[in-house]
């Protein structure tokens, strides 16, 4: 089976509520998680807004799907790469993002952060090492 595992990257570049892209991406990631592939998520440009903490959609009649990101670890989706420059450009720091943890089965189920802050150059490297890139 190992030979069949491909590296999938889901690229998120849209803010969460202005368009349906962000929610659709998350749905596809959850569906795709059933296929036991090597999955990563990338958040850059306005995509970093998806992970901001304390979202409250009561006033706009839309589902707040940001808590769903915290469920990804249960589906073995544990690599959420966030681009530092995209945060900086929007006046955000990593502290403005919600905490997303997973339990590492190879390390006695230790709790570890899923969000990994990377530079723009590192993001380009991550993109270049994928078998499949799905953009939203």
């Amino acid at each position, binding site marked *: 089976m190992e030979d069949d595992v491909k590296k999938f990257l889901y*690229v998120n*570049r*849209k803010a969460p509520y202005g368009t349906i*892209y962000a929610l659709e991406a998350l749905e596809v990631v959850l569906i795709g998680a059933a296929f036991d592939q090597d999955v990563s998520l990338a958040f*850059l*440009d306005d995509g970093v807004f998806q992970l901001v903490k304390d979202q409250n959609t009561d006033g706009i009649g839309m589902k707040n799907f940001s808590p769903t990101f915290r469920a990804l670890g249960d589906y073995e989706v544990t690599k959420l790469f966030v681009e530092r420059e995209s945060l900086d450009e929007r006046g955000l720091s990593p502290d403005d993002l919600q905490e997303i943890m997973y339990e590492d089965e190879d390390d006695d189920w230790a709790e570890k952060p899923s969000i990994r802050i990377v530079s*723009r150059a590192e*993001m*380009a490297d991550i*993109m*270049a090492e*994928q*078998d*499949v*890139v799905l*953009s*939203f």
Partner: protein
Amino acid sequence: MSTLHTVNKSPFASGSLQSALDHAKDGDAILMIEDGVYGAAAGTRVAEALGARKGAVSLYVLEGDIAARGISTRRLIEGVKPVDYAGFVGLAAEHDRTQAWL
């Protein structure tokens, strides 16, 4: 190993072209399609950013989309190559992956 990047948004309305340029590696290709082809015209405020990567990154434009928008091949930034749909397929086959900058 290389990537074909596609850009389908006008660079005057979206940061997609700039993000593609910022993340493309040397040896990659960028293909401008749909409203993305507005980025391929010479003499615009984005032409310099595109021209700065030519050589390191191959630049293409879908000719049906420039024709539809009244952009003649003479108005393209020097070094931007027009391709037809078969050329698009060829580029997708030549590269290891395709990444759409939506």
